[in-house]
């Protein structure tokens, strides 16, 4: 470092970093599979959460089903769908 460093530090963002990588015009290795399972050390795999809290997981899947039904009915009904027993809705 006494002879002068070869390092330049700057404030940046991931997309500006990505822009510089793009400018480098390299060929990158190809990946075709996924990044499962995740393990951050020997004998510790983060695969328990695939099934933990089964009731909540089912509740979310079912809710997404209901959401899709609501969206479709709202699209079919038009503005009338906003009027409900408790007043007008604010969906957009």
């Amino acid at each position, binding site marked *: 470092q006494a002879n002068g460093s070869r390092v330049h530090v700057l*404030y940046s963002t991931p997309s500006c970093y990505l822009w510089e990588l793009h400018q480098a015009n390299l060929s990158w290795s190809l990946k075709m599979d996924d990044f499962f399972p995740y393990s951050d050390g020997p004998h510790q795999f983060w695969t328990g959460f695939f099934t933990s809290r089964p009731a909540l997981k089912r509740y979310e899947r079912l809710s997404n089903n209901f959401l899709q039904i609501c969206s479709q009915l709202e699209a079919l009904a038009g503005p009338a769908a906003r009027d409900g027993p408790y007043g007008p809705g604010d969906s957009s």
Partner: protein
Amino acid sequence: VAAGCGYKSCPPTRPDLLNVHLVPHTHDDVGWLKTVEQYFYGVRNEVQHAGVQYILDSVVAQLVAEPTRRFIYAEVAFLARWWQLQDEATRDTVRQLVEQGRLELVGGGWSMADEAVTHYSAGLEQLGLGRGFLRRALGPCAPPRLAWQIDPFGHSRQSAATFAQMGYDGLFLGRVDHQDKAQREQRRELELLWRTSGSLRSPGSDLFTGILPNVYNPPTGFCWDQLCSDPPVVDGDSEENNVASIVSTFLDIATKQAEHYRTNHIIMTMGSDFHYENANLWFKNMDKLIAHVNAQQANGSR
């Protein structure tokens, strides 16, 4: 000050040197040890010290104070909550910061969604919800070009395919298997092109993917948040002056990290869980780090 948003607003770099991109960020879980509301307002700090409303206030003020500073933000659930509580003057300031690329939105979903147990259609819903808010509130510069999945525990090809098909230019990851990562470091394959679909045509389904050096944390010794206890940069006339050791440690870390990546650019994530509640601590020390490290270039060089 940057000329426009997107890649046009990027800071100048030095093609002849190793460029270290400091990326200030905060990782704000949309509910974890506390509820979303508790995290937003900073309630029950005895459980975990975290208050997102203060983080956003503080970061905006620090970005305004110094135009070269940058910050990225990911979780729209918190940003939208904060936005509702701001006056028009603050909103204008934030819109300007976004337009000038000083505040950049990454990811852009309502949250940083899990990739193992989520259904792809729900993943689309939450991305649409977040990106829709950003576009309406903050304008055309706001919706991200970059996916930011730094904390999910493993990554699915389907999730990457969604990002590719939505027009994202890249994806950055924090957590990959430790053996996979060690091998990729050796082979300099931490950055790669992910062919995200077996049925869609390339290159439409290809996504540049980068694995970050230290999950999403700063390098050891360089954590300057109020939640950390690393020494600050002391550059005054003081018995505590530590500039020489901080600079040499930093140069050492940067050089070692560069051995695992292929270009003369590397990235350092300067932040962690619910950091930047007092953003001045981070930015003041990074300002000094940048000044002192770059000053070393002047002492002769090849």
